[in-house]
Each structure stands twice: as C-alpha cells, then as structure tokens.
C-alpha cells in the first residue's frame, strides 16, 4: 500500500538526523488530532493546523467498484455522481411534488426496462410507448430541479477543489473552505449523506457514458487497461471496470443506486477527516449535531471471494492505432500482508527517480525505453492485487525488448541482494516524503481518513515506518522470488496497426 506517511515519520527522521523541532514531535501531533466515533458509528477526525483560516475535509466511504453488484458495474461510481444532486432541501423548488414525480420516473423506467430486456416476445411498439412514458415522466420531474445547487452552495461560500473519486476500493469526497463556513459544511455534507435524492439520474447516466467514452473507449491506454485487468483477475471484482460496462450503464436504475447507497453508505462504513484552522472543542459538537441524523446500521458484508492462484501465463495483445506499450503484472496479497513494506521497497528501488534500476537499465544504459517502472497497488490495494512493470519503447524498439529487459531486472532482483545504498535510499526517501506530506490540509485529511479506514487507527501511519526500517535485503529477495513467477504473470501490450479496419476501437 503506497501512500504518503506523516507525523511519527517526522519524529523518527528527526531522531535519526538529530534535528530539534519540538512542534513536530509525536506528542504534539497526537494532541492536535481528536478522534470520535459517534453513536451511529461514524468516525470523525479533526486535526488542528492553524496556518491560515481555512480547512479541508476528506470523507471516505469504504465501498468502491469492487462492491458493484453483478450486472450493475459502474454503480458505485454512479452513486458518487449522484451525491452531487442534492437532497429534499437542496436542488428542488418543491420536494413534495418532485418526490411523487421521481417515483413515477422509476415506475415507468421499470416497465420500459422489463420490456426492453425481454429475450423472447419483445413488442417494439409497446417498447416505444413505454419509453415515451418514461421520458415524459423525466420531463415532469425535471421541472422541480434547481440545477447543481449543491455545488453552487459550496462554491459561492468559497469552497475550492470540490471533487469526488471512485476507485475499486473506496469512494471519497473532498473540498476546502474558509474556516468560518464549518457549520455550513456540516449542514450540507450531513444532509448529502442522510437524505440523497436521485434526481436527474438518467441524464447523469449519459454523462457517465461520456466519461467512459473519454477514459476507456477513445483512449488506447484505457482500452488496454480494461482488457488487461479483465484477464489478470478472474474471481475478484478487480476484473471489472470501475466506470462500468456500457450495457450495465444503460440498464441500472435510480432504485438500484439508492439500494447501493443504503447498503454501503453506512455511518459505520464512513470516516471523515477535517484538517485546518479548527478548534476541535468547538467543531466536534457541530459535527455531532449535524451528522447524528445519519442512521446507524451494521457494517456491510465484506467481499469474501479470494482470487485463486493464477497457475498459467495469460496474455492480452491489442492491435491498435497507437504506438507500442508493454506491461506485465504479478499477483500479490492485499495491503494487510506482513510483507507490504517489502513490496514498497521493491517499488522504490526499481522505479523511484533517476537512480532506479528500471530507469538506469532500460532508459539510460540499454537506450530502448522512454520510460520504465514497476509499481504495486494495481488496480487497488484492499484485496490481493498486482505488482506491475511497464516499458514504453523508444521509436524503433519493440515490446519484445521491453519484456526481455524487464525480466532480466526481475531475475537480478531474485538472484542477488540489492545494495546497502539502495536499501538505505528507500528508507531515507520514505521518511522525507512523510515530512513533505505534512504541508497541506488536503493531503493530511486524505491520509488520516485512509489510515483510519484501512487499519482502524490513524496512528498506523506511524507504525508503517517501523515496518520500513525492518525491511532487509533478504526480505526483498524472498518476496521477489515468491511473487515474480512465470505462472503468476499476465502480459498486456499494444502492437501498432495503422489500418483502421484491422485495429481495435471503442464501442458505441
């Protein structure tokens, strides 16, 4: 799990380098972090950082596209989009009437969809009629909508960096505001997750289709990644695209999204971290006052399917109107594996900067690649995932040369110890990166929320450094030998084909 790590790191680094810096010691950092789990199960962290009268927050919902139900890929991401559509108090001119109109939309859509998916006996005329009823219902519901009022409230009160993200592992929401807006923040953010309204759902589905066309269908690397993950994983949900398959995106309903919401957006499944010019003594009661309205429900069920051992080389060769690229991935266990820090050491030694092995061998010395690296955490970290290597060949060089050179580097890692300097560089850089990560409210909020979610205790970001310090050269060889085996490999590549008729492309 490669994240950026903070405070204790500073302490350790300071001890190592004998830099006196009282303000950054662990005790002071712990004093500045207040953690509270509300009766409904929601965990809130507040870190005081009074550099300027502003704050940032990061809300992490411990559910991502890995939680998408069968035949509803893209639903977690769709829900993320819907979290900007408002509530009964935000985004409507008359919720009482809109609610009835939205129920009609769902009812007519269900009827249309039931006809549309009929394998036998579908009546085209009836389908047209049902579609019209559904579209009319949408138009009727639309009359009540105040467009993007949620975003407008945030932005007109000085909010910046408003965004959200869905990964395989989780869904996150973030922005920053002037610190005098903390109660407004609490009011709208709690409302957003207590009372979401699925308005404009089917238009937003089209927006997400455009996002899919942009990121995947119309982008050669996007096309390759979708095919590659679909091949590398068979059982774990990592084999499906986060954005969703086009047919699923054109099928699931607002009712499905709301069901997903009620199952996974549970207070006990969410962590909120706030960092900035905030006094916890004043702010925590405000947060409690507003977020108490989130219902308490048990944590949703975990994914229990474990990706079985691969036991065979797999390969995806894309013939495409794009220049060549080569990638190969190896399964590794989740971030909770005791060797997690060893994988990070391998990533650092293989890929970090101009001293890294991949750069020096493929780019500098062999002069066959424009870029080359190996990295962990693909496409997520929560479940067993991939350690992947890639090479971007220089003009006139081939994917076969990338493969050979990458496998030589892997063989070297397996057969010889890394040097003392390499290992030390990894440890020093990890510690320094921690310090650099302390300089922003946004970054700190993100780390606190992630560590609290992933380990149940934000202090774990301290303990990671102990694990880094314990990594040995023997560990690196052992883990490389364990992970980088032929039968555990999936290969992906783009081979250039300039004839449009013979090349791959996105679907409509």
């Amino acid at each position: 799990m490669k994240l950026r790590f903070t405070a204790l790191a500073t302490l350790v680094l300071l001890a190592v380098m004998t830099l006196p810096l009282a303000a950054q010691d662990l005790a002071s950092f712990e004093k500045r972090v207040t953690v509270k789990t509300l009766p409904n199960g929601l965990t809130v962290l507040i870190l005081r950082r009074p550099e300027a009268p502003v704050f940032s927050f990061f809300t992490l919902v411990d559910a991502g596209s890995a939680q998408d139900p069968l035949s509803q890929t893209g639903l977690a991401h769709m829900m993320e989009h819907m979290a900007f559509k408002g509530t009964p108090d935000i985004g409507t001119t008359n919720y009482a009437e809109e609610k009835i109109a939205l129920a009609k939309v769902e009812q007519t859509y269900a009827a249309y969809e039931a006809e549309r998916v009929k394998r036998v006996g579908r009546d085209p005329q009836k389908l047209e009629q049902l579609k019209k009823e559904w579209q009319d219902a949408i138009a009727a519901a639309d009359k009540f909508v105040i467009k993007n009022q949620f975003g407008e409230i945030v932005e007109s009160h000085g909010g910046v960096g408003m965004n959200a993200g869905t990964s395989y592992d989780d869904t996150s929401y973030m922005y920053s505001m002037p610190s005098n807006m903390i109660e407004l923040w609490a009011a709208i953010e709690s409302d957003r997750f207590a009372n979401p309204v699925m308005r404009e759902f089917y238009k937003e589905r089209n927006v997400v289709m455009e996002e899919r066309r942009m990121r995947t269908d119309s982008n050669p690397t996007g096309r390759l990644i979708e095919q590659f993950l679909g091949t590398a994983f068979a059982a774990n949900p990592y084999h499906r695209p986060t954005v969703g398959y086009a047919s699923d995106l054109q099928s699931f309903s607002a009712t499905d999204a709301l069901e997903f919401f009620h199952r996974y957006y549970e207070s006990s499944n969410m962590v909120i971290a706030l960092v900035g010019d905030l006094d916890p003594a004043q702010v925590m009661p405000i947060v409690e006052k507003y977020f108490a309205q989130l219902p308490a429900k048990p944590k949703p069920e975990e994914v229990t399917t474990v990706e079985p051992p691969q036991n065979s080389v797999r390969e995806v060769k894309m013939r495409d109107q794009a220049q060549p690229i080569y990638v190969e991935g190896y399964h590794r266990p989740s971030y909770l594996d005791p060797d997690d820090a060893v994988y990070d050491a391998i990533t650092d030694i293989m890929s970090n900067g101009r001293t890294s092995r991949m750069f020096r061998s493929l780019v500098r010395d062999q002069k066959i690649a424009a870029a080359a690296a190996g990295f962990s955490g693909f496409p997520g970290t929560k479940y067993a995932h991939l350690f992947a290597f890639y090479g971007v060949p220089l003009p006139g060089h081939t994917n076969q040369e990338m493969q050979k050179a990458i496998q030589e580097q892997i063989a070297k890692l397996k057969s010889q110890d890394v040097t003392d300097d390499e290992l030390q560089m990894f440890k020093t850089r990890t510690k320094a990166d921690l310090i650099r990560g302390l300089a922003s409210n946004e970054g700190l909020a993100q780390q606190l929320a992630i560590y609290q979610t992933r380990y149940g205790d934000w202090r774990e970001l301290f303990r990671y450094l102990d694990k880094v310090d314990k990594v040995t050269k023997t560990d690196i060889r052992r883990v490389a030998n364990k992970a980088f085996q032929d039968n555990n490999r999936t290969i992906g590549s783009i081979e250039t084909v300039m004839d449009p008729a013979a090349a791959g492309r996105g679907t409509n």
Partner: protein
Amino acid sequence: MRTQKSLFVQILFSFVLLAAGLGTAQPIPWNKLTFPPLPAFHPQQPTRIQLANGMVIFLQPDHELPLISVTARIRGGSISEPASKVGLVGLYGEVWRTGGSKTKTGDQMDDFLEARAAKVETGDGSDSTTISLNCLKADFEPVFDMYLDLLRNPEFRGDKLELAKQQMYTGIARRNDEVSSIVGRVSADLAYGKDNPYARDEEYATVFAVQREDLLSWHQQYVYPNNIILGISGDFDPTTMEAKLRQTFDSWPKGPPTKDPDIKFTPPKPGYYLVQKTDVNQSTVSMLDLGILRNNPDYFAVSVMNEIFGGGFSSRLFNNVRSAKGLAYSVGGGVGTSFSHPGMTNIEMQTKSDTTVVGIQALYEEIDKMQQRAPDVDELKRAKDQILNSFIFRFDSPGKVLREKMAYEFYHYPLDFLEHYRSEIDKVTADQVTQVARKYIQKEKLSVLVVGNDAEFDKPLSGLGPVTKVDISIPPPPKALMEQMGQQGPGGQN
C-alpha cells in the same frame, strides 16, 4: 433475507437515535445559517531584495517543517528559440540537470541527491527556464552548493543530450495516440497560428538539429543575475540567509540585457476544422480565439463572466450542457488570460460521435444567451461570491504568496496586483459582463476544432459551414536520423 434483517436493524436503530436526539441542539437548514466573519488574516509577505547586479531575491521564511526550497526563474524561453530548432529550450531544461556540471556528472548528482531525498531540478517554459531545489534543512549546505555549481558551471554532456532527444522523438511518435494530445496541439495552432512561437511543435528535424553548442550558448546568453528572480522559502533564519545569498551572488557580474521576440498575434481564421480519428466513439469540440492580457482593464469583468459561463460546478455550461442535456462529461471554458500575451479563448466539450453537431449547437446556444441576457442579480452575486469567498486560497500558504509575488515581479506587474483584485471584482456590473461576452466571444469569429470519427457524426459538419481537414500526420525524420533509428524507423504513422 439479508435485506430484511438489515432493514429491521435500521428501524431499531432509528428509534434509539430518536430517543438520544431529544434535548440536543437541532441542526439548522443550510439556508438559515449565519456565518461569523472570517478572522482577519494577513499572510506573511516575502522580503524583496535587489542586488547591485540586478538579481531579485525574495525571502519567505516558514518554520512549519524542516525543509528549504529554492526556485530561480530566468528570463528567456522557447518563444525565443529559432524556428529551425524548436525543442531546443525543452532539451536545455532537461539536460541542464541530467548533463551535470563541469566537475560532477548528472549521474553522480543523482546518487548524491537521492541518498538525501533531496531534489535539484531544472525546467523550461515558453518565456523562462527554472532551476530549483528542495531538501531537508540539515542538508541545505551541500545541496545548495550543488545547485550553485549547476547554475554557474553546467556541462550539458552529450550522452544526456542524446537521451533527452530520444525521449522527445518518442513524444513526437506518440503524439497522435491520444485525443487530448491532438486537441492540445491543434488548438494552439488554430488560435495562435501554426508558426507562432506559442504554438509551434517540435518535429524530428528540429530536435535533430539541436547540438550541445546550442545549449551552452543559450546558457551563456540568458543566465545572468539581471535575468534572474530567485525565491527561497522554508526553515531558515532570514538575516543569516540574506547575508549568505548576498555573499554568494554579489560578485556575479551583470550580463547583457535580453529581450523577448516581438510576436504578432492575428485572430484565427473562422470556420470548422476537422481532425479525423477512426478509433474513437467520442468527439472533442474546441471553439477557439485569441484571449486577453491580464493587465487589460476588462480582466475583472472577464473573470466574472468566465465564472458564470464556464467555470466550476455551477456554471451555465456545466448546468445546461452536462446536467440538463447529458451531452458531456467534460465541458467548460471561457476567455483566456495571460500575463504577457493574449491567452487562449477555448470553449471545449467532449460528446459521443452521434451528438457532435447537437453538441456544437448547444455550445452556440449558451454563447448566444451569454450575449443576449445579462446575468440576474443572484447569478452575478453567486459568481462574485465564488471568486471573493475563495480568494483566501490564493494566499493560504507562505509558498503560494511567494509564487504569486515572483510572477508579478517576472511580468512587471505591480506587486500589490492581488490587493486590488477584490475591490475590482466587487465593482463588476451585470452590463459589463454582457459587454465582455459580446466583445470577446463572437460565434462568427471562432475557429471550431472537431477531433472525432466523422463517419459516425449525427450530421455532417459541412452543414454548419465550410470545413477544413487538418492534416496531423507526422513529418518523417530526416534521413540521417532514420538511419540512426535503424530499419524500423519511428513506427507507424497516423
């Protein structure tokens, strides 16, 4: 079964909550809330020093973390490179660092710096180059020595120039793979003109033509104290640091003055421009024109107009083209502004192939509305609030304040430019917003670029007006380079 159980638990808990909720303060709806004023905030201003040799130094101490960073911005960038050697400054910005100094190779520097998790990097831009440093306070002395060595005695070793050229060739070979890269390049070509220094592209031939001597002579021509603005921020004592920097730079003699080239900006040729790409199912539409300079008196009205028209999550383009019509995931834009030359006005969207023309018409509709209908009181207020309430984020860290001041110094803007900004935004009227919309976004003057699969468009583009097909095929490498690349050449062309 599972669902029923969790529903039951939910009901149970909601009763518990209800009971617990009695007697606690009730949440207030968002629109009934009042806010305390933001506490007075006077961000620390950097100290400005000008040495006798013309070098300007800004010192911005910041003791939060044990780090120090330095950035020197040096006048002269790619707009000043010869047309036959486009790419020269890009190569310079890379090889300045990787090529090392007279006494240390770039690789030796890498080993030294990485062992300390320190960075010394060089970079390039259209009007300047940079050399920067970031390290732990404890390592400052040796890292700064290396920084100075690179600043004064770069070697531009040939092997690293060759490596940088190879990477640039790769970029050229791959520049038509992704739509975003095509759009970025062709948009600039259309807005500024293909040969304008702000738009022209590196080609195999122009990169191949660059020699080590070009980098050395560039350095000789531009890197003088009177061309440098240096900013330092982080955990240092300002008095000691000032003395150290004076001692370091005072003896560096002034160099000859340099001047940016005079560049003529002519408005783009209106019409439709098509780049055909068969492996996509989505079109990118970019409506282009020349924008304005930031010292234009209309700058403030333009800022408000941009916010209303195409900025952020509640702009008209976002509301109407994305949310209401579901035509795009990515849509936005406005009048471009830059410090030293006209910015690029760009209204851009991506929409599926079979709504390409519908999408263009939707953008036109918004342009028309912007010109015909002045924003109402609420819309104007919201836009101003967005700008004014988020103003604090322009100076919420000492580093941001420093960067802002360095930019004003570089472009000869008043150092208190930001201080007037608030009141100027406040003064903008609804009429002014309409006026600048009419003045700077005129449908009939726009160059409209479409990158997409025209066989699948909803209607032919030619129904809208004359269409020029843009050829983006990559000029082949010169013969000598082709031989160097071997039999295969740079791969397929598209």
